[in-house]
């Protein structure tokens, strides 16, 4: 596997050239925040950021995506027959994705790509995407990736990883996909042992900066109904506005709605991100709603991430520790605190 050092200018030049063969997504400063955008002419990537406000999950799983199309024109012999929409699965690359967000794709993959059903759009978008990570030299105060199976330089789910060494990037190829991408980027020089050692030291010192403990070790052994009926849910949910910011920003939230949209005689079947914070999410046609109350919806979000997912897949929680829900919750509901309550219940 490749271990190379690029000057930052050289790397940026390489990314510009990469646009010939890949649809490249990079972090761009957008007002007060960073957002992953297509690296089009006139866009300047900015890799000096802690994390983007939204994870790049929409590259693989767009917020709104056309699934099918159809005509309602009765003069057409194919009227009312739903057809798959053509899709572009040409190679894409997300450059600068944080390791937590790459880990999140692995968490979500279990849902979209399982032994019984494969979601064709998610799977094909994912398979056509190469993830080039950027390790976190300075994790945020809300970060807890190390507590949920990740780390600021965690390689799981990444195809290549960048170490920001100050004046240079050290790039490690991690998978065949990553190697193929790095093969498209000319220049750079092989990293020597000292450079690799420096990179390892950087990663180790970054990990130590995350000091908060979020225990998850006892979640699996808990009885579901004992957690479900625990006394703390009303209190946790008390301040919640059900605004859905947490689910919208979460890189591991995958729930979606499917809706038909018609314009004239042409129509589309579209899927949109949805949120368990909305009462409509579970409202039956009859008017019955199994999660009619706010606290039930808040409980669902935490139980799903920290208990149901744990039980179903037996491989950790449905959280990559990115801390976005903690940072952006308008009423300061903190998943790390909830996790502690659940783990210790």
């Amino acid at each position, binding site marked *: 596997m490749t271990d190379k050092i690029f000057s930052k200018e050289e790397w940026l030049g390489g990314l510009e050239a990469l646009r010939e063969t890949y649809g490249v997504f990079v972090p761009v400063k957008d007002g007060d925040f960073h957002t992953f955008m297509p690296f089009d002419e006139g866009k300047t990537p900015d890799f000096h950021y802690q994390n983007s406000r939204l994870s790049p999950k929409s590259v693989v799983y767009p917020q709104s995506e056309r699934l099918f199309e*159809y005509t*309602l024109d009765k003069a057409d012999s194919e009227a009312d*027959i739903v057809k798959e929409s053509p899709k572009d699965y040409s190679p894409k690359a997300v450059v600068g994705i944080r390791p937590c967000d790459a880990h999140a794709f692995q968490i979500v993959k279990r849902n979209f790509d399982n032994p019984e059903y494969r*979601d064709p759009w998610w799977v094909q978008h994912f398979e056509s995407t190469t993830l080039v990570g950027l390790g976190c030299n300075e994790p945020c105060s809300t970060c807890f990736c190390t507590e949920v199976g990740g780390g600021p330089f965690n390689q799981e789910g990444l195809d290549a990883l960048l170490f920001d060494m100050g004046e240079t990037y050290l790039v490690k190829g991690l998978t065949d996909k990553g190697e193929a991408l790095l093969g498209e980027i000319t220049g750079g020089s092989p990293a020597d042992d000292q450079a690799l050692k420096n990179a390892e030291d950087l990663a180790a010192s970054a990990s130590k900066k995350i000091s908060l403990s979020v225990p998850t070790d006892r979640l699996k052994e808990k009885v*579901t109904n004992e957690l479900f009926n625990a006394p703390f849910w009303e209190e946790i949910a008390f301040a919640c506005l059900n605004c859905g910011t947490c689910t919208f920003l979460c890189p591991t939230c995958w*729930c*979606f709605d499917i809706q038909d949209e018609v314009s004239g005689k042409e129509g589309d079947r579209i899927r949109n991100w949805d949120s368990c914070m909305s009462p409509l*999410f*579970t409202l039956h*046609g009859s008017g019955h709603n199994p999660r009619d109350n706010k606290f039930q919806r808040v409980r669902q979000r935490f139980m799903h991430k920290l208990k149901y997912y744990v039980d179903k897949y037996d491989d950790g929680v449905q959280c990559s520790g990115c801390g976005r829900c903690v940072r952006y919750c308008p009423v300061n509901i903190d998943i790390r605190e909830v996790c502690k309550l659940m783990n210790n219940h």
Partner: protein
Amino acid sequence: MENPYLPYPVRIDKIITETEDRNLKTFRFVFLNPEDEEKFAYTPGQFAELSIAGKGEIPIGIASSPTEKGFVTFTVNKTGLVTTYLHNMNEGDVMGIRGPLGNWYPWDEMEGKNVVIVGGGFAFTTLRSSIIYMIDPANRSKFKDITVVYGARTPGMLLYKDELAQWEQRDDINMHITVDGTDDPDWKYNIGFVPTITEEKITSADNSIAIVCGPPIMIKFTQPVLEKLGFPPERIILSLEMRMKCGIGICGRCNIGDQYVCKDGPVFPLAQLKEMPSEY
């Protein structure tokens, strides 16, 4: 790549208005591509998404039996956007079916046992599928006594009235049809709520398995009756409803605990439900 969200195109072959309030209609569909019928191989208890271009999809239990060939039927209550539109569609119109989805009644376990079917209102659809399946000459010998308690608010609200009358005539199935009330002087069957009639007519739980499908209130009051009769929770089988979209356990909305009603259900033994959060 195979697309589990893509509906099979079908033509509405026949529409039957089932109930006096005209809110329940049975739709018989024929596959536009005959090979799709084979791919749609189902087992009684399963459901499918009925798909109408421009409106959306709804999950509905399959009312026909796999022993009936050449078509598939669904009985639909007029409730929301899709069902209301469907009720206004005509024979010959084209739409879609996606499935079969979900699990089914525990047919392997039911073999060699007495089967008690308890149904109420318009939830009788997959129970009709099951009855047709069991009384088929190829299958009848696999089961011992078959007893059916089926109730509706009034005689005019019963589904499949012609078939109910035929089953009443048969000696290989014990029918107990009931209505909550009626002013029809010629009504010759029972009057009373389903749990009451169940308690009256079912005398033993020996070597029996009960399948219960109905509105929540009926399920709530039938459950203790069956337990009192001696049915252990492992042998009380329920079929649940939930708001659904994908139908394949991916979109995330129909969960009860870590189980998705669309994929892991809709059929659950009461014993399993007791271990799950009571959020349905």
